[in-house]
């Protein structure tokens, strides 16, 4: 290598002209050939029960669809565009097979347009309902949120289907966006989802993923930045019962300076074969100086026979960062918390209920959608009633 080559290389590195290939996050592509059908041995598929995906991974086009019930605040419009148009409008391209398949098979995208300077307290509600797990449904959604808009978006899923969807949130500069996606499926549903957010300059986005139902839910929540100063808060809450597989895969791609990401996912597991997976990937690119990131995953194992996988990954390519950290913990009840409450006269059962209630409330109170918060609290209480108050819990050391 000559001196000039070396200099050229260092300039190229500094400008990041070549895309940095993150070993955990392959470059995106619309070409299905770039995303072969996984065998289950791949790093990104090794936790997923491929057979239970019921053929989605090589699924063909389908006329089946979910029924949409919507409440649309004045000013927001919903229309249909072609896949090519969605691409031109700046959707976030797929980086794995289900997302690429959804775009290839959906036959067009739903475009939800929130105009610039939109300001509304009333949330945009999209309620998607499936009739049968025999239906294979593809979905492509694009939310375009204008500069300085302030909007709350709730997407809820109920009923049953094999639903594979790719959703993009393209968020304008200075916008404040609160997104909540609720997976409240029937027991046999299979849901593969990729939510990806591009945060505008100085914009802030909160994305909350709540998964209670379904046989298998595998959901990506990705965030990247269109400019400096963007902030993303990625929240999650899940409750896996016997036999359920709930998988949440996070990716914060710090591709701009002075951006922030804060990830908090909390889950509980109860019953034989309950399985949860949380993968928290963070990439801090060379250009992303002065960023802050923190990711946290906590799992509470309520009975024997459950499995919680929790894997935080941090790739850092610059030393000039404000802060980067992660925490992951999977445990049964905290004996010290129970002892503290009981030492104040609170019965063991009531103490457990309080600790669990608090465990979830800690996330629920941050979601910032009052109407949904009440529903979530009620759903958590119902889930808890199945086991916690039934007295079949296993205490630490018991």
């Amino acid at each position, binding site marked *: 290598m000559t001196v000039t080559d070396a200099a050229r290389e260092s300039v190229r590195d500094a400008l990041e002209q070549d895309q940095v290939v993150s070993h955990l996050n392959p470059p995106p592509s619309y070409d299905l050939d770039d995303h072969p059908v996984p065998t289950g041995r791949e790093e990104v598929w090794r936790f997923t029960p491929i057979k239970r995906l019921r053929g989605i991974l090589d699924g063909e086009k389908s006329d089946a669809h979910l029924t949409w019930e919507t409440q649309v605040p004045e000013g927001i419009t919903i229309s249909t565009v072609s896949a090519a148009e969605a691409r031109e409008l700046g959707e976030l391209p797929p980086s794995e097979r289900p997302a690429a398949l959804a775009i290839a098979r959906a036959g067009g995208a739903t475009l939800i347009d929130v105009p610039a300077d939109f300001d509304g307290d009333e949330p945009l509600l999209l309620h998607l309902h499936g009739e049968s797990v025999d239906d294979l449904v593809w979905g492509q959604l694009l939310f375009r949120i204008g500069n300085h808009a302030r909007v709350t978006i709730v997407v809820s899923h109920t009923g049953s289907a094999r639903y594979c969807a790719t959703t993009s949130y393209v968020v304008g500069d200075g916008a404040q966006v609160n997104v909540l996606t609720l997976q409240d499926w029937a027991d046999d549903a299979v849901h593969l989802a990729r939510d990806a957010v591009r945060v505008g300059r100085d914009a802030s986005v909160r994305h909350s993923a709540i998964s209670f139902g379904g046989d298998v839910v595998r959901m990506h929540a990705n965030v990247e930045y269109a400019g400096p100063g963007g902030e993303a808060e990625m929240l999650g809450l899940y409750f896996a019962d016997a036999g359920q597989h709930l998988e949440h895969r996070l990716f914060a791609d710090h591709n701009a300076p002075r951006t922030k990401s804060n990830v908090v996912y909390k889950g509980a597991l109860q019953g034989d074969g309950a399985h949860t997976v949380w993968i928290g990937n963070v990439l801090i690119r060379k250009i992303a100086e002065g960023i802050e990131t923190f990711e946290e995953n906590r799992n509470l194992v309520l009975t024997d026979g459950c499995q919680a996988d929790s894997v935080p990954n941090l790739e850092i390519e610059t030393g000039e960062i404000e802060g980067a950290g992660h925490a992951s913990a999977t445990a049964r009840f905290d004996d010290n918390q129970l002892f*503290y*409450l009981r030492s104040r*006269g609170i019965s063991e059962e009531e103490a457990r209920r309080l600790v669990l209630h608090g465990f979830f409330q800690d996330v629920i109170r941050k979601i910032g959608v009052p109407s949904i918060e009440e529903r979530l609290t009620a759903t958590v209480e119902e889930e808890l009633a199945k086991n916690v108050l039934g007295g079949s819990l296993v205490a630490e050391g018991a």
Partner: protein
Amino acid sequence: MATLEIKDLHVTVATEDGPKEILKGVDLTINEGETHAIMGPNGSGKSTLAYSIAGHPRYQVTQGSVTLDGVDVLEMSVDERARAGLFLAMQYPVEVPGVSVANFLRTAKTAVDGEAPKLRTWVKDVNTAMEAVKMDPTFSQRSVNEGFSGGEKKRHEIVQLELLDPKVAVLDETDSGLDIDALKIVSEGVNRFKAEGDKGVLLITHYTRILRYITPDFVHVFVDGKVAEQGGPELAEALEAEGYDKYVNAKV
């Protein structure tokens, strides 16, 4: 009545090398209206005594008895002990995320009294108890002990002492880590509790500092899992001057 009687108490904890005896025969009687200070070097078993009285599952009582007004405490579960009138102010109060102080205090009060407190007076009682230890009422809405400073956690323990109004309070190194202002505030809280007259106080401390604000009736020096010496407040002054050396060296 409030008499806590500890007789020949032996306690072990499980370690990797098998059970290890920490308390080796403790005798102590706290009558109504009395304040007892237990002092001793680190590792002498002071905190083990506190947690054993409260019923922490980590500690196994192998011998002896603990009774409150003649009733066997060791047969009771942790929460039954609290409902019987025992209170432990902890050295390291535990954080319980997502559970508000208001919810916690109301749940505890309901459990201890066997009925929910009257809403109107309760809110006032909570605010009064908080103001008494100079805690802002907004703490009610925060999660239990989460993000509290060391001093705030200790003051929160005193708020609970005032509201739950037990018969006997065990204070485990409540003074540790407090600055002088916080120490005074916490001591005043304990003195208000004492002033009710029919209460027992077991004050566990490493330092004599807190005894300038809370006057004990009896001082017990704890060494190697039992009481090595006892006396009146003057014993604390002697310890202040001489330290624990003579006890620790005597043991060796």
